């Protein structure tokens, strides 16, 4: 991951030099830091259950999964900072329900169950959220996807086509079955 990052920065600098004119100050480029969530208010159990829910939605395949991208920590920060108490309580109650009911249904801790078993259990929540936009799971799914598809891991593994400095625009580019979503910003 770090190598890829350096390569990108070197690429940006090289390109800026090649273009001439206004350059990006190197200090600006080196200030870049990676995803560094403040998890000081979350316990390890909460992060584990959130990671497991997110991983159920976006599992590791040949590419990074949600747990690799620390989406549990991302969701915790988002719930803490971006939602008011009423919604926080609704989301936290839903997470608690998944933990308790999951343990009951799967015969052991939800986060320790297999991906297949977790998918079977979470599928019910996903169906409910697809039918009802106000269902707590709709928000958990949205946060999982927002966090994952804007993560360094998804970019580095080519799950999205992340080009920080495209340098050109092609309004009619061909695609094949391997083409990934082009990502330019948030």
């Amino acid at each position: 991951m770090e190598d890829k990052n350096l390569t990108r920065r070197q690429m940006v600098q090289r390109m800026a030099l090649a273009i001439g004119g206004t350059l990006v100050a190197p200090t600006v480029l080196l200030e870049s830091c990676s995803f560094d969530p403040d998890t000081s208010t979350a316990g390890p159990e909460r992060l584990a259950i959130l990671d497991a829910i997110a991983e159920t939605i976006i599992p590791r395949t040949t590419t990074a999964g949600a747990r690799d991208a620390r989406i549990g920590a991302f969701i915790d920060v988002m719930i803490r900072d971006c939602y008011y108490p009423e919604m926080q309580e609704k989301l936290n109650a839903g997470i608690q329900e998944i933990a308790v009911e999951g343990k009951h249904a799967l015969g052991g801790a939800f986060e320790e169950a297999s991906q297949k078993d977790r998918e079977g259990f979470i599928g019910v929540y996903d169906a409910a959220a697809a039918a009802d936009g106000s269902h707590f799971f709709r928000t958990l799914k949205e946060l999982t996807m927002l966090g994952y598809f804007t993560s360094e891991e998804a970019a580095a593994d080519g799950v999205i086509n992340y080009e920080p400095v495209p340098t050109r625009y092609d309004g009619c580019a061909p695609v094949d079955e391997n083409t990934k979503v082009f990502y330019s910003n948030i």
Partner: protein
Amino acid sequence: MAEDKMHYDAIVVGSGISGGWAAKELTEKGLKVLMLERGKNVEHIKDYTNTNKDPWEFPHRGRATTAQEDRNPVLKRDYALNELNPDWWVDDQDCPYTEKKRFDWYRGYHVGGRSLMWGRQSYRWNREDFLANEKEGIATPWPIGYDDMAPWYTHVEKFAGLSGSHEDMDVLPDSVYLHAMDLNCVEQTAADRIRKAFDEKRRLIIGRTSNIAVPHHGRTGCQYRNKCWLGCPYGGYFSTQASTLPAAMATGNLTLRPHSIVKELIYDKDGKKAKGVVVLDAETNMTYEYTAPIVFLNASALNSTWILMNSATDVWEGGLGSSSGELGHNLMDHHFRVGASGTWEGDQDKYYFGGRPTGFYIPRFRNWGDDKRDYVRGFGYQGSASRGDWRRGVRELGIGADFKENISKPGPWTMGMTGFGEVLPYHENKIELDRTKTDKWGLPVLSFDAQLRENEAKMRLDMRQDAIEMLESAGFKDVAGWESDYALGMGIHEMGTARMGTAPENSVLNKWNQVWDAPNVFVTDGAAMTSASCVNPSLTYMAMTARAADYAVKELKKGTL
């Protein structure tokens, strides 16, 4: 702050789009200019703090926190409240205002103003835009016409750098372009079909924008990152920092003073002109007086009017320019957030690469030529076609490996557009000083009392229906009209409140943007607008400012100011 020099040849109040142009033109003509900016300095590139960050470096991926929302009840009404450039939007607690009726006021108090965050769409007004008030007996006639403005449009376009296509349409006169950006394949097909279906009367063209992808006056040009509003280290778009400020600084004639709130103009009632300005230092709360034979007010439309309202109140209770009875009146914006969208079944083997910093534009066609509606004026559309990304997966059924694989591929094509309609200049739509409420610096705030009226309501029906009609005629499926919450101000195109006119009885400013009651005071931002057209206004402010600056310097040399 060096306080040795208190007298200049000209003072420019504000450093946004029009203030930057005033400073450039006046300094290049040899005047020693003091540019006052109420907010902090923002240095080109160095202070674009977030522009080179990757998305994962933002803990909330761009979204506002509840702490931000609690502090900013106005900003949170739209995209202005976010994690990416929060320092460039005015803090609602420091700078409150009064809403007799809802008005969304999104402000940028820093060097460069909203030139750093603007939408960059750049269109000339057409000949009829300047004539409509007079022909229809609405408000008051413009004192200038297209021919007065045309050479100045050309002048500012050459320096600002525009991209767009030459279309030779009376309704949307061409500008000077360095190049054009491309429509994507779906937009191009739609353009061809709409042109044919509506017999050339409706046209879909690439948006005309102050973005350039070629080197221009020391700027590298657009890299298609589509992150303009974080500040562009490549100088890809026109801003004060990328364009006018370096030109003005290069003359050696410009002094820029940030943290300088202009409280009022110093009015000489015997000489009937302004002697200078009173500045409140926003950091120290000390006041200073600066003098100059010329003052340009470019504080943004409603703040330029605020300064006039606070000036010469011993002569006119309502302030300088209030003798006309029009100061603070005729507040305008562009009304939008109504249109349609649809899906496209073809071109599944086509996609786009790069973040294009503009969409398409459909110029006005209503009440144009032989078209006649039950309202006056018209609207244009802005929109784009795109393929879905991960967001489409949120509401769809699906989790797990197959879902992940599917959602990482480009989704279906959709195309959407919103109209941007002209708001008429109603005398009843107004701002006033509210002396019962003060801001962080103890200064009185503005009070808003304005609303859309019948003409706009009728127009909005067409804005929705015509969009549906065009998408359907172009072959889009599942076409649906939509309308979302719009309040005046949301267009961030505040216009009027110190309009130009033909006589002191009907207007605050004359045909050279001079205050009738103080001819050495020029107002060349949105405040000066006598009507609104339906096209984005900033290019017109640039041209108007350059025109007025040229006149001001000539008159100064003649000794008439």
